[in-house]
């Protein structure tokens, strides 16, 4: 099923079955784990649904916001939100939003991503209990 929409005078067509299913699966994983999911939704919309990046940046943020809002309220009603921990984490996250972009200008994004890829792999192997990982 295709959905047509207009963006800045151009008309785009996207396969919404992929969008809905992909969004749902990403959202389940993201809300189960407690992370945003942006790095997965953007490739879903660009690579798999074939939309250009300038359509996706804002719209994907809106889609993720739905997930975060719903999951956060669910966690709150389940009594699993530690408000104190949330406040401390939020202070860190919001200040990071100011500090991050300033540092980003001086760093090569390619190298940051390479380091991040190694870091994530290491953490993943630790979480998966792979033997011989210090």
């Amino acid at each position, binding site marked *: 099923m295709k*959905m047509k929409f207009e963006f*800045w005078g151009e008309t785009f067509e996207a396969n*919404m079955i992929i*969008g*809905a*299913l992909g*969004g*749902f699966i*990403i*959202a*389940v994983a993201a*809300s*189960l784990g*407690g*992370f*945003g*999911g*942006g*790095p997965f*939704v953007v490739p879903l919309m660009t690579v798999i649904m074939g939309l250009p*990046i300038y*359509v996706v940046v*804002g*719209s994907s*943020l*809106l889609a993720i*916001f*739905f997930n*975060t*809002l*719903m*999951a*956060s309220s*669910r*966690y709150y*009603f*389940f009594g*699993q*939100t*530690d408000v*104190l*921990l*949330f406040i*401390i984490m939020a202070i*860190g*996250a919001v*200040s*990071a*939003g100011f500090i*991050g972009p300033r540092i980003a200008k001086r760093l090569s994004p*390619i190298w940051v*991503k390479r*380091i*991040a*890829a190694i870091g*994530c*792999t290491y*953490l993943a192997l*630790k*979480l998966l209990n792979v033997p011989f990982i210090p």
Partner: protein
Amino acid sequence: MISKMMKWFFWVVLPLFLVIGAYSWVFTQETKKEASQGATQPTEATVVKPSVSEGSEATKVELKLDKEIYKGGETIKISGKVPPGMKVNFIEITSIDSKVQVSRLDRKDFKFYLSKEIPAFYHIVINEDYVAKIDKNGTIEEKPVKEIYNKWKANKKWKIGEFMKETNADIAFITPPKLISEIKVWKTSISKAIIGSRGEPLPSLTDKKEIKKEAARLIQTRMKDLPKIFSLGKIKTNEDGTFEYSFKLPDNAPPRSYTVIAVVNKEVKSEPIKLTVDVSFPKIYFPVAGTSTNFLGPLILSLAICTFGVLMGAGGGFILNPLLIMIYHLPHGVVAGSVMPTVLFSQATGIYNYSKIGFINWKLGITVGIFMALGGFFGPLLNQFVTLDEYKFVFGIVLLGLAALMFWQTTPGYIERSKKEKAILEEFKKRAAAAKKAKEEQKS
């Protein structure tokens, strides 16, 4: 025009109604059940009153502590006197004021248990020289407790019920059943889980024996490792019956009142004696997580990880959550539930800024968003149903996927393409800002 409206109805309004409908239905179902159970509660609550020790003067255990108020990490010097010929075999230490919510899905019969009254700290010290007596169909078998302890300690899938039975530690498992007035039970099924419900509510456990059994399992769910709940210690009992033991409180001990009980056997034990743990700034107590730590630790961790997250173009949650679990041993439900809302601010400001320059396609965003909201409705429920190991497994797979994505974004082909796309994006942003400005000027 009509077909466009039909599409809107099909993709946006209908799913939205479904989500809201399911949510409110589940909510009323659960509150209804709670209300009906609450009505029968008071009569049963009186049953669960502390039983006064029936021992006479001769078989009483005296118990003393060196102080009344302690800090996390300090040592409690426990001393006292037992009747001659007896030995203190167990010491139970419970935080009675700081309680946490713990839930557990029993995979055998798919029952979901939840209690909000699990002590945030619980420990039983077992005398290392104790020889456990196991009743095997009438014949009593004796086994040194050390052997049993080491056997279960090596087993990752240890069972608290069996461990306590074999070591006789269940006679020292005294306070939790008194502390917990009820344990809620649901019978889960896939059809119920799909609509986001924990399942069919069953009558709560109020029977003392059942509470005792399930309380132990919930404590195991929360503390996970055997050495955290049980430890072997040298409880020295002298010939005249005096005994002493030093217990080191963990650094993250929750605040307020605790009780200590010294146990000789099923009949002979001391009265519970109270102590207070004081948590003072900069250490603070996280009431839902049930741990106290220096607040600077999580703050610096969050700041550092989220800054790195901004640099790599992903939220901090990916790295923050596993680290919070590994460093502070927080329950995975609390980690997810507390870290997830922190990104709401940055997302909201992002959406606001993009919408100001007309850079959001609402139709696309909302349509995908509805399905993401459905996923977000389901995920937190799933989080309660999975064990820590399963959570780690899912997270590990997600992180491997993220690492692959990151790596792909550093390949020459991707860089080339993204350069072009970024240029177009900047061009569009400029156009959008200019158009916005022109519109405003027209208005004024």
